């Protein structure tokens, strides 16, 4: 069940668009904001609100990299694996993260604190290598800075 706030926010979005379907990405973003991911049940609820089939909603949800259809941890780490970060040796950061968190890409730590994901170029290639934790961007990274960055997130 979507919350009353979620429903009213989605209904607000519906007023901005000429056809209901056009609000589906906004609706997915709204639902993911609090829940951190979008469940099958959420997909069905969004479909009902927007007069779409659940499959249609899911085809959009699964197309985009940053709509999560599986549970993620309390914090999501997006490690840039694109060209400038590769040239500057992002793989050291990757090994360190995997070692400290004991996860592979796509996995969540046992305590549910972090999910580790690779991400395409974060748009700060002059200060590579880079990563994001939730909304925070870290640049010019060195391997020995990783541990203290992780400590900032509960």
């Amino acid at each position, binding site marked *: 069940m979507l919350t009353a706030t979620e429903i009213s926010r989605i209904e607000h979005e519906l007023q901005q668009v000429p056809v209901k379907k056009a609000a589906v990405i906004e609706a997915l*973003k709204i639902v993911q904001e609090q829940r951190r991911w979008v469940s099958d049940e959420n997909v069905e609820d969004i479909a009902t609100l927007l007069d779409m089939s659940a499959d249609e909603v899911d085809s959009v949800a699964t197309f985009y990299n940053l709509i999560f259809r599986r549970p993620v941890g309390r914090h999501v780490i997006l490690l840039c694996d694109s*060209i400038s970060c590769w*040239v500057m040796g992002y793989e050291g950061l990757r090994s360190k993260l995997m070692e400290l968190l004991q996860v592979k890409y796509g996995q969540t730590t046992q305590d549910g604190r972090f999910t580790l994901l690779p991400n*395409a170029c974060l*748009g700060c290639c002059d200060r590579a290598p880079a990563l994001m934790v939730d909304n925070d961007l870290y640049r010019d990274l060195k391997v020995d800075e990783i541990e203290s960055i992780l400590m900032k997130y509960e």
Partner: protein
Amino acid sequence: MTEAPLTGHIKDGETLDLRAYEAIGGYQALRKVMQEMTPQEVTALVKESNLRGRGGAGFSTGMKWSFVPMDGKGPKYLICNADEMEPGTFKDRWLLEGNPHQLIEGMIISAYAIQADISFVFMRWAYKEAAAIMRKALSEAYAAGYLGSNILGKDYHLEMHLHTGVGRYMCGEETALLNSLEGKRATPRAKPPFPQISGLFGRPTIVNNVETLSFIPHIMNKGVAWFQSLSRTGDGGTKIYGVSGRVNKPGAWELPMGVTVRELLEEYAGGMQNGYGFRGALPGGASTDFLTTEHLDVPMDFTAIAAAGSRLGTGTMVVLDDHTCPVGFVHNLEHFFAQESCGFCTPCREGLPWTEKILYALEQGHGTTADLEQLDLHTRWLGPGNTFCALAPGAMEPLQSALKYFREDFERHVHEKKCPYGNHSH
């Protein structure tokens, strides 16, 4: 000092708010346009300036606008493409974070030129700070009467919204962007009809890059001759260039259009890091062909870079140094393209993962001479004309030029049955 109209006022890490922007003459161009110019005159001036799109394709901006029908009823749209996801590209971020009102003013003038009713800034998910800055700037612009109804007392009405994406390189392709704004998967549309005729929700729509639109107020203020005088070549204006990789001072600079590759590398990026040599560079992001040492004196404008067999693209250069494996470099690029392919057409959906696998096998020492032939074939199968959009041909540009300039490196992987550089894992 060279003139830097787009970025000269931006202090490192700071944002020009509305008052600061107005203090340096901001929104004067909009005032002038509203008082003195018809929409057709704005388009004509932009066309005459020969401003070419900074999003990668380099199409004439004024020409693009001139295709928009100026009669008929129903809404028209102007969209700023702020999706910036081309690997190696970090120029629009600078403009978005540093001078959001310059972009907004450029968008209002551009929207007026095509008589658009609604405009969107389509911004990639990762630009969190830029999104917050843009939200604030939009509300300032509304409060000051630059947006909304009767802009500066004129009978012209424009709404402007920020839309943040949910992550997909294809959102930057202009027709896929329109689908995404309509709440669909970001797959491209067949052209024609072109978006100028039938775009967002089937209505006339213009899509322009951040850097392109940011130039509009300056052209209105200072005119065509000034715009052309900024450049060293026939392609007018300044350009934001960038360099990343193993150089001493990676960064971005606004410079006269047509500085050479060597100037960029040596004077601005401070030369190669100690112990590293230059082997080549992608001049304008991941989907451009390599330039090598023989191209160091090529001017970085649309025409000269094309004559050298590549594309200016986004103007942000990625450097390949002599300690980095060209095969591994291209493998990283093809991994990106394979992942971001929207899967809509077969050569791209099937061909890119295949390409990536072959490059991976080469890096692991399992490659054969037949694999190199397969790569050559792929550069043709996925080349221009065989796929639905420009993603796949773009993906082939660094590959085909690597096969041409760094052939020996590919062959060594086959014969030595390992990566001769050995410094990168995958």
